[in-house]
């Protein structure tokens, strides 16, 4: 957790105290995100750090085997829940493409449901909503941002983030930083500039736009002709440095690298942005000149700890390209780079800590066998950092794919073909200073879609690729509890209400809440 040392943060702390002393229900003010109370999960990662770690300790390795169903919420849809539920004021806000529900966090009773208008954007999943004051925000498959009254689901305003007719869509869970709502979009099938927008959460007006690749008409393309680099995942934020960290997606055209020579900054990168201006502070490229669809959109996890004996403000990412990066988040310099999943596409690591792509593993007419496959060494599913053990726990995949490109495939959109060959899911607990894997836990055939949650009592919650939600011991990865709820497609959360700790996770189209058995008074 970040301690408020700057003036702005000190003000925020005063506000948090003021909020805490107010009776009754209230909306969420952005300062509350600086130190979220344990009866909330107020933003996608739970807090600004992206560690997805909870200080709650009621559920422990000793009693987790007694975990039982507290409630289940039926969306009534076959659509898999991929969203992180957001909890504020005892109300869970859950989303799937076009839909949002407000649910009583104690009983799963539905308070209201919102349905967006029918549209032709990609309905591939939805990551979650954002809450600010009495507003709750939903991004849509046709790249709009809808602000609803959190109390009743009535639309307050609806703005277009990007033009869906050009091929943009959004699954994004927006990140709130003070009075900035940061909203990302996606768009891999068209050559579109990578765009992150800051929206005024009160009015819906655009405050600034950050482009990871230059907008059309920019003279002297710094990206080497590449478009893409979409910022479709929720970033993280350091209030002391006042920097937002976001992972950027792959360049377009996707598999045709010939059309865009050079490294193609800032695609497949981690970028540090000033939230008040949208200006770039620094960028670090996880994959220079990507030709395999390996977005570096994965969570940039912020950790304050020692590296080589020196206290550091670090940023860690287990990236889709199969490499793990440890950076100094003040300036983006590399502290360590190592593979955490099967890789065969790089010749080595350069002085800046970036893998050096092997040209022989670029997509070719006759096909190249490449690890990882397009799904990557990991993906959008959240990892977790456990401060007590110093372990970074990630749901990885060891996989191969075959990649094709020939000039006839052109230079628009996908511009190539690739096919997955095989993959195995494996949870790895990584020591970030050395790259050593302290333990591994097999998850089955194919990647699991489940993210990871750790708690201060020494537990890991995640899901396997068969349809079990799992509770593991953080120190050694051994299984302590499971339930066959169907494939977990989101990242679990936890909170405490009325003295009872809940773990909430999606299985298929149902949201499940688990807790210890109620004790009779």
């Amino acid at each position, binding site marked *: 957790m970040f301690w408020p040392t700057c003036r702005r943060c000190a003000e925020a702390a005063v506000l948090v105290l003021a909020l805490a002393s107010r009776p009754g229900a209230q909306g969420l003010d952005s300062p509350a995100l600086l130190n979220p109370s344990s009866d909330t999960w107020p933003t996608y990662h739970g807090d600004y750090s992206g560690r997805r770690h909870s200080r709650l300790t009621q559920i422990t390795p000793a009693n987790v085997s007694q975990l039982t169903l507290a409630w289940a919420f039926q969306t009534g849809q076959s659509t898999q829940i991929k969203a992180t539920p957001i909890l504020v004021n005892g109300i869970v806000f859950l989303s799937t493409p076009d839909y949002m529900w407000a649910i009583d966090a104690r009983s799963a009773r539905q308070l209201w449901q919102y349905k967006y208008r029918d549209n032709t954007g990609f309905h591939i999943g939805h990551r979650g909503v954002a809450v600010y004051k009495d507003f709750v925000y939903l991004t849509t498959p046709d790249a709009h941002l809808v602000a609803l009254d959190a109390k009743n689901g009535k639309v307050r305003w609806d703005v277009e983030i990007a033009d869906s007719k050009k091929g943009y869509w959004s699954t994004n869970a927006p990140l709130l930083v003070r009075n900035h709502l940061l909203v990302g979009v996606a768009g891999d*099938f068209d050559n579109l500039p990578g765009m992150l927008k800051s929206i005024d959460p009160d009015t819906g007006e655009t405050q600034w736009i950050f482009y990871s690749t230059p907008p059309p008409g920019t003279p002297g393309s710094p990206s080497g002709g590449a478009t893409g680099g979409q910022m479709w995942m929720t970033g993280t934020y350091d209030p002391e440095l006042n920097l937002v960290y976001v992972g950027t997606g792959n360049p377009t055209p996707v598999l045709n690298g010939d059309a865009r020579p050079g490294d193609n900054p800032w695609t497949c990168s981690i970028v540090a942005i000033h939230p008040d201006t949208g200006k770039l502070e620094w960028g670090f490229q996880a994959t220079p000149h990507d030709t395999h669809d390996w977005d570096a959109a994965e969570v940039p996890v912020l950790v304050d700890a020692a590296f080589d004996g020196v206290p550091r403000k670090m940023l860690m990412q287990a990236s889709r390209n199969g490499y793990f990066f440890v950076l100094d988040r003040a300036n983006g310099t590399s502290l360590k780079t190592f593979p955490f999943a099967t890789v065969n596409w790089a010749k080595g690591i350069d002085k800046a800590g970036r893998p050096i792509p092997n040209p022989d593993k670029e997509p070719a007419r006759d*096909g190249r*066998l490449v690890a990882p496959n*397009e799904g990557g060494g990991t993906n959008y599913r959240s990892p977790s950092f456990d401060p007590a053990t110093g372990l970074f726990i990630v749901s990885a995949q060891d996989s191969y794919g075959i990649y*094709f490109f020939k000039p006839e495939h052109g230079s628009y959109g*996908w511009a190539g*073909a690739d*096919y997955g060959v*095989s993959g195995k899911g494996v949870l790895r607990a990584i020591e970030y200073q050395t790259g050593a894997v302290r333990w591994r836990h097999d998850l089955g055939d194919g990647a699991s879609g489940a993210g990871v949650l750790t708690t201060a009592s020494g537990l890991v919650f995640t899901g396997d690729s068969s*349809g079990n939600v799992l509770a593991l011991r953080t120190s050694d990865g051994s299984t302590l509890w499971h339930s066959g709820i169907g494939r977990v497609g989101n990242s679990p959360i936890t909170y405490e209400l009325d003295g009872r700790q809940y773990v909430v996770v999606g299985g298929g189209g149902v949201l499940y809440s688990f807790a210890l058995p109620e004790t009779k008074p």
Partner: protein
Amino acid sequence: MMRLVIALLFGVSLASQTDPAQTYTPAQIQAGQPIFTSRCGFCHGRDAAGGESGPDLTRSALVIDDVRGDKLIPVIRDGRVDKGMPAFGLPYNDLIAIVAFIHDQQKKSELPGRRRSVDTTDVQTGNAEAGKIYFNGAGGCARCHRPDGDLAGIATKLQGLSLLQRMLDPRGGGRGGERPHPATVTVTLQTGQTTTGRLAYRDEFTIALTEASGWYRSWPINQVTFTVNNPLDAHTEQLAKYTDEDMHDVLAYLQTLR
């Protein structure tokens, strides 16, 4: 429609006909396009020729075998959850519109100038002689396979990308030919009794098999001992050993087995 009536009258399977009735009205195709785009387009591409993670449907055996949704609708409606394809609980009219759109795209894909095709000749860059040496030597393929046995005539059943995909993972993609039998498992109960069958399911907690009778049986993993025999594991292990040259050489050798 007349063809359908005749087929029904005579109890003839439409799928067995050489020229199945695959015509759809422009209205059906038009209705299917936006539904396909929004529900299927991300994985299978807006033009059904493959997108992120999903296969090219214009080259899918299922699409080619399908007649008015008899194969496709069950898959769309129920999904292939084990392969990562979700179920789409859509009304019948939406499903048939999707089917119409896919078939229309499949027909268009046969026109010249397709964007993302992998032609049979594209993958034929290997050296068959070198492939034969690898097959019999370093690759270890000859431990399980015989060119005059199980692989006899393989190149007449599978070509190009399909053959390559099946060579790398026999359970995987590609059109035509037979999928190999899945793994077997022998389960020993605490009484000492043993049961053997095809491996039906395995996770961290449950082991299950299909008996010769066709019945499914499962046990908690912590109450039995079991041995899985999966000869296909050798294919997975080989992925880390192949160079691209080896891969293409073995493919070239397989292409000589006609």
